[in-house]
């Protein structure tokens, strides 16, 4: 998964450009309720969520295409809650791009400039400039009907960018493209966003898309943000089971806290993490040691890339949990090998190819999963 490497991406901590304060909007059964958000200048923010979670509605509220019942929207230090779409300084690319079919590519791109009564000379200069930057200078005379998916996307971007928007709102911009071009186009999007320096919100339901572009991401569910932060944080420290599942975290367990973990476990490595102590949690019959003091029901996840697999009988090392299991499936995922172990609990481990080659396991073979304490993350109980 490319996302494992994307955590170190530069993040500008400039001033806030987009700020939503408790926007509230009811449409039939759906309700946008707890979607307060801050996005910094120049940031590339990805809005994730399952279908029907309100991503597009949120974007349309930012655009002014839907009127809020209550709450405030600020764009570039201006309260735009009651401003018309044209006064908000936004560039909007809806799903499937919505290119105007009755005018040429050039007509589409300079549409915003003509609507704003920009001078003729200025129109053709800016149109050409943005088209050249996006590599579609040769398409200007063409009709929309004959364009490929990638070309359409660039035209839609050019149309949104030519008016010099303060923020760019992209609704599922690459969902219509096939998988092989999607990643390349995402890279392109990122490059264009940097080139124009425009703060961007990108709506997607695909995790892979977020990994290839996002500075930060937010996960929306039923019109409320579940968690907002860098993807690495969403991936490694999900704040709810929903987020964990959405981020396709594996090894999610539920258990009962039985009491503080025994001393030897806790004192193996005395670091700041241990200061808070640890708790023994029984998931089924299997005792796990999780960081922090807990009581009652505890949900936690074991990060698959942190699990080490050894052959049965090998030294495990003290302070680590060892779980026996049989290997039931391995899948080569390109960057890593996904190995599934069936034992007292079902565990998934992501092994590097080097580790996998050293191990040379056979399906059905007896193995031991070694879990360090730092690879267990407790998911906060939901209110």
């Amino acid at each position, binding site marked *: 998964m490319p996302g494992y490497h994307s955590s170190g991406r530069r993040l500008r901590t400039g001033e806030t450009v987009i700020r939503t304060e408790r926007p509230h909007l009811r449409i039939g059964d759906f309700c946008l309720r707890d979607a307060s958000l801050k996005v910094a200048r120049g940031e590339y923010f990805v809005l994730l969520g399952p279908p029907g979670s309100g991503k597009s509605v949120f974007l349309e509220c930012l*655009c002014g295409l839907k009127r809020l019942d209550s709450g405030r929207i600020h764009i570039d230090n201006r309260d735009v809650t009651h401003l018309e779409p044209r006064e908000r300084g936004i560039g909007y690319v809806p799903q499937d791009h919505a290119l105007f079919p*009755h005018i040429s590519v050039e007509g589409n791109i300079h549409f915003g400039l003509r609507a704003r009564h920009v001078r003729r000379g200025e129109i053709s200069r800016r149109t050409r400039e943005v088209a050249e930057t996006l590599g579609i200078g040769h398409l200007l005379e063409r009709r929309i009907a004959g364009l490929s998916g990638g070309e359409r996307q660039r035209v839609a971007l050019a149309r949104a960018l030519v008016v010099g928007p303060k923020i760019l709102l992209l609704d599922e911009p690459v969902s219509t493209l096939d998988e092989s071009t999607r990643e390349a186009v995402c890279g392109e999007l990122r490059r264009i966003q940097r080139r124009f320096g425009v703060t961007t919100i990108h709506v997607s339901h695909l995790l892979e898309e977020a990994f290839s572009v996002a500075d930060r991401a937010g996960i929306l569910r039923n019109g409320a943000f579940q968690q907002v932060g860098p993807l690495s944080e969403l991936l490694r420290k999900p704040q709810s089971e929903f987020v964990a599942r959405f981020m396709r975290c594996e090894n999610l367990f539920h258990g009962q806290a039985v009491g503080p973990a025994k001393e030897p476990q806790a004192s193996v490595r005395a670091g700041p993490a241990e200061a808070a102590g640890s708790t023994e949690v029984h998931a089924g019959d299997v005792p796990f040691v999780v960081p922090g003091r807990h009581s009652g029901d505890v949900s936690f996840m074991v990060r698959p890339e942190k699990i080490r697999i050894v052959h049965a009988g090998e030294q495990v090392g003290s302070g680590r949990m060892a779980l026996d299991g049989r290997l039931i499936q391995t899948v080569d995922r390109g960057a890593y090998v996904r190995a599934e172990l069936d034992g007292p609990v079902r565990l998934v481990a992501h092994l590097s190819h080097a580790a996998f080659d050293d191990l040379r396991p056979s399906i059905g073979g007896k193995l031991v999963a070694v879990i360090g304490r730092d690879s267990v993350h407790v998911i906060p109980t939901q209110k």
Partner: protein
Amino acid sequence: MAAVDTPVRGWRSRFFAAGTLFFLVVFVTCALLLILTNLAYIDKRAVVTILTSGFIREALWLSLWTSSTTTVIAVIFAIPMGYALSRYRFPGHVLVDTIVDLPIVFPPLVAGLCLLVFFAHLSGTQVGQWMERIGLKFVFQPKGIVLCQLVVTASFAIRSAKTAFDEVDRRFENVSLTLGCTRWGSFRRISLPLAMNGVITGAILTWSRAFGTFGPLMIFVGAFRGRTEVLSTTIFLEQSVGNLEVALAVALLLIGVALVCLVTIRLVGGCALVKL
């Protein structure tokens, strides 16, 4: 000629196709027979009459200009009405939508009767007297022809326009709004051009219906030779004095003009003016 995407056909499919085509053939044959029988009745005298008669030429001219004027007025109303019906939801929307369609199901004679009663009532009021003073007279006047045609045909233009605006994707308008358009700008640059095909089709439909209107005219403007006589009135007048051949010749002229209109509609509908 087999279509490119025709799947492999077994005897059942062929039987089904033959069944549907049978009804098509029966209908078209009947329609053609009707016209051909008429043709058989027409003699040389009738053709000479319709080519030389000043009354018939005037009637044709009156038919053409009244139906064209009706079409222009209908379209002027249809565009904003179609847009409003398509885009705005207001209390009574369903009722208004139904009333717009009402004249389509109105018996034409009833439309004429309604108009006559309305204007008879109006002439007794201040408004009616004022209208008469400035020369706005409709009853038994050529202007009344346009009014009758409007009442029975405007619905087609409005309905077509509404359907056309319904088919314009809202997202196009939304994007244009974010790009700096006002509502009017968005309507002018996006909605109207994209709905133009439907508006034009509606206009042609309106024109051809207006061209053949007869029922309400008989009641509201009468059948005065050379004054309120349109082609359909001519047919009535000729056959009422026993000139059946001439009446049929005029009827064929009417059918011919209507046919040209229908073919135009097909062409406009088939190869849309705006390539989408």
